[in-house]
Each structure stands twice: as C-alpha cells, then as structure tokens.
C-alpha cells in the first residue's frame, strides 16, 4: 500500500508540450474507438508512461478517460440505431468479473516473476490473441472483399446459428442486435474473456467485438457500437477501484478525454458512411500490426528473466522504440482508413445528391 501511495503522489508536471501530445494521442485513439468500439488504449498507456507517468497511474488514468469516452460514443451511436444496450450491459457485467480476475492474475504474476514476468505475460497474451482473432477477422474481411459481397447483408456464422438454436429454459433473452433469443449463459464466458483481455492488454474489444459477431451473430456495426457499452461498464467499475487507491491522475484523464471526445464523435459519424465490413478491416489491420509491435518486446522480457542471452542496452532501446513506433503506426493507419473511408462515403453521397438534383431539374 505504501508503494501505491508513493506512486500516487508522483503525479507528473504538465506543460504545454505534454498537454498537446496527450490531446493528439487522445484524438486518434478516440477516432478509432468511435469506429471499431475499442482501441487506442494500447497506445495511450505507453504514451503516458513515456512522459514519466508511473505504470499504475497510467493504467488508472486511461481507465478514467475510457468510461466517459465510451459513454459519449455509445450515446452517439445509439442515435444511429446501432447500440444493443441490453447485450452491452449483460456482457459488461461478466466483463467486470473478468477485469477483476485478470487484474488478480497480473498481480500474482508480478509477485512471483517481477515486472519482466508480468510484461512477458502481457506481450505473449497480445501476440497469441491478436494472431488468432486478428488473423481470423482480417481473413473474413478479405474473403468478403474478394467475393464482391461488401454491399450485401453480413452472413451469420454457423457457430452463431448454433448458439441461437440452443434453448436453455429460464436463461433465454431476446437481443435486438441478434434479432434472436439466446441463452445468457453463452454471454458469460465471452464477457469474462473481454474483461480479462481488458485487464491484460487494455483493449477488451479485440475479443468482445469479434465474439459478438462470430459467436453470437451480431452485425459488425452493432457489435462495435455495443462494445462501447461494455467499455463504459468496465471502465466505470475499474476507475472506481483505482480511484479508491488514489491512483487516478484526473488531469491526464481529462486532457486525453478532451482530444478523444473530438475523435469519438468523428469515428461514430464515420460508421454511417462505410460498408459494415470496413469495421472488420480496420480492426483486423490494427490487431495484426500491434501483434508485431508486442512480438518485438518478447525477447527483451525473456532476456530480463534470464531465459535467453542478455541483450545489450542499445538493442533493448532499439526494440522498445521500434515497438512503440509500430504501435503508433497501427493507430495512425487505422485512423487514416477511417478518415479515408468517411471522405469517400461523404463524396459519394454528395455526388448522389447532385445527380438527384440535376435529374429533378430535367
């Protein structure tokens, strides 16, 4: 507890440069979150730490910016009819349990193997989950693109059809996003896994959104919007837990929020211009790039644990910087695709409107 208090007292000094930096990172993170329902957090935490913010304060402050951001994003996308509040809250509750369990595992690993052990666990989780889920999402998006059915309605997977066909009396609930009744028992492991991932790599949506699409049968747009409800529920509980220990640097959280609210509004607007499969494209690309970023750090932690030959300081520095740069690139690329798709959609709409107008004149 003494360590925690000492760490909490160590809130950094903020100057104009730091504020601008956090605002910009917040904006880009918010833009991606508004579009795919999550993301951004994996860059925000290391970005804060690069300013000298202690790890726990960075995680806590990130969490405290996440829930108000998710709230604003969810309200915005609810206006477009994309949010399934019931599904979000039900998944959010089991996700909260997942967060607590994930944080407990983290603490145990840290106690037994130190910081390097904990970092190695996080990186390996990143690499395995992003490789499996990210690869699957990207493959699905590619298949949709190749089949030329990007305009068509999304197909419900066989697994989701099976889940929707199971009837367990007393547990069946209707969800508007699925347009079907499913047993809430299926939502528990999915929410739990989302929460565990959020506690481990800070982005639960990388499991939450694909599981809603592929396991439950929700359309991409609704899954990504509903993820914002889950993020709100998880973020609120998590923030309170960290605030109880005095770990939230509210200045950092609100500065990031200043940028991310501009971003999340724009990202949410963007979803109305694109074909649903673009959600999968952006999510898959970010996941796969981040996977490489974290993969680069695995040898660093293995070396710190003495499991491989010790790496030189220069090598470690190069790997760390490259890893951070790749992570930032993932976010910037994701944001660029969102903005590009939005721009194209906006232009197409204007042209269509002009054609209608000209046709009307004739």
């Amino acid at each position, binding site marked *: 507890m003494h360590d925690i208090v000492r760490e909490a007292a160590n809130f950094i000094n903020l100057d104009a440069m730091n504020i601008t930096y956090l605002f910009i990172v917040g904006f880009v993170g918010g833009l991606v979150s508004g579009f795919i329902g999550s993301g951004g957090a994996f860059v925000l935490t290391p970005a804060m730490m690069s300013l000298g913010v202690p790890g726990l304060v960075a995680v806590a402050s990130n969490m405290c910016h996440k829930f108000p951001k998710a709230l604003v994003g969810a309200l915005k996308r609810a206006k477009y*009819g*994309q949010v399934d509040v019931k599904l979000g809250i039900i998944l959010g509750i089991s996700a909260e349990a997942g967060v607590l369990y994930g944080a407990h595992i983290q603490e145990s690993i840290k106690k037994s193997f130190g910081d390097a052990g904990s970092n190695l666990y996080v990186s390996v989780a990143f690499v395995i989950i992003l490789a499996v889920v990210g690869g699957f999402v990207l493959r699905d998006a590619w298949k949709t693109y190749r089949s030329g059915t990007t305009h068509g309605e999304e197909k419900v997977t066989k697994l989701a059809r099976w889940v929707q066909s199971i009837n367990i009396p007393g547990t069946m609930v209707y969800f508007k996003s699925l347009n079907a009744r499913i047993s809430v028992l299926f939502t528990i492991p999915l929410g739990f896994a989302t929460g565990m991932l959020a506690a481990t790599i800070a982005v639960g949506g990388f499991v939450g959104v694909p599981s809603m699409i592929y396991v439950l049968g929700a*359309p991409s747009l609704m899954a990504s919007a509903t993820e914002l409800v889950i993020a709100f529920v998880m973020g609120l509980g998590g923030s309170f837990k960290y605030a109880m220990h005095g770990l939230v*640097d509210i200045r950092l959280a*609100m500065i990031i929020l200043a940028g991310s609210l501009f971003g999340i509004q724009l990202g949410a607007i963007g979803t*109305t211009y694109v074909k649903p499969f673009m959600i999968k494209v952006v999510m898959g690309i970010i996941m796969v790039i981040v996977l490489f970023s974290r993969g680069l750090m695995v040898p660093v932690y293995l070396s710190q644990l003495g499991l491989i030959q010790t790496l030189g300081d220069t090598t470690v520095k190069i790997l760390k910087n490259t890893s951070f740069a790749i992570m930032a690139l993932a976010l910037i690329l994701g944001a660029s695709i969102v903005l590009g798709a939005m721009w194209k959609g906006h232009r197409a*709409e204007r042209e269509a*409107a002009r054609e209608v107008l000209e046709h009307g004149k004739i």
Partner: protein
Amino acid sequence: MAGTYGRSRKKPVGKLIVMGIISIALYVILLSNQGVVNDYFSRGGLVAFLPIAVAFIFSIVHGSFTANFWTVLGIEAAKRKKEVK
C-alpha cells in the same frame, strides 16, 4: 432498427459557443489548480467518487461541445437511411 439519422437544418452555433465556454472554463479551473487537485484526488478512499463525478461532468459538457463542433463544420452522419440489422 432503421437508423433515422440525417442532417439537421439549423446549425447549433449558439450551443457550440455556450458549451465551448463552459468546457474551456472547466479545463482552466482544473489545470490552474493542479496542486489542490493532485492533493485531493490522490487521497483515495471515499474521495474516489470525485474523479468519477468530474469525468461525468466533463463528458457531458465537452461531449456536447465536440458533437456541435463537427455539426457546425458540416461533418454529420450520412443522410441516407441505413438499415442496421
């Protein structure tokens, strides 16, 4: 579940200005009292409700400002009705 979004006819310039002023005021208060803020917010315990309350207030005010900001700039949801099923 058809989304019925589209462009509003009138741009909310007044709302933008009011929310913008309140939002800036909130940030000025927060950043010009960093010593007091850090002291209180790092105490933990029951004071935990403070950062949560602050986050809610900022999200309402700044959220409204940013929404109006893009609307006034003419960046709005697609006009067409989209079936989100």
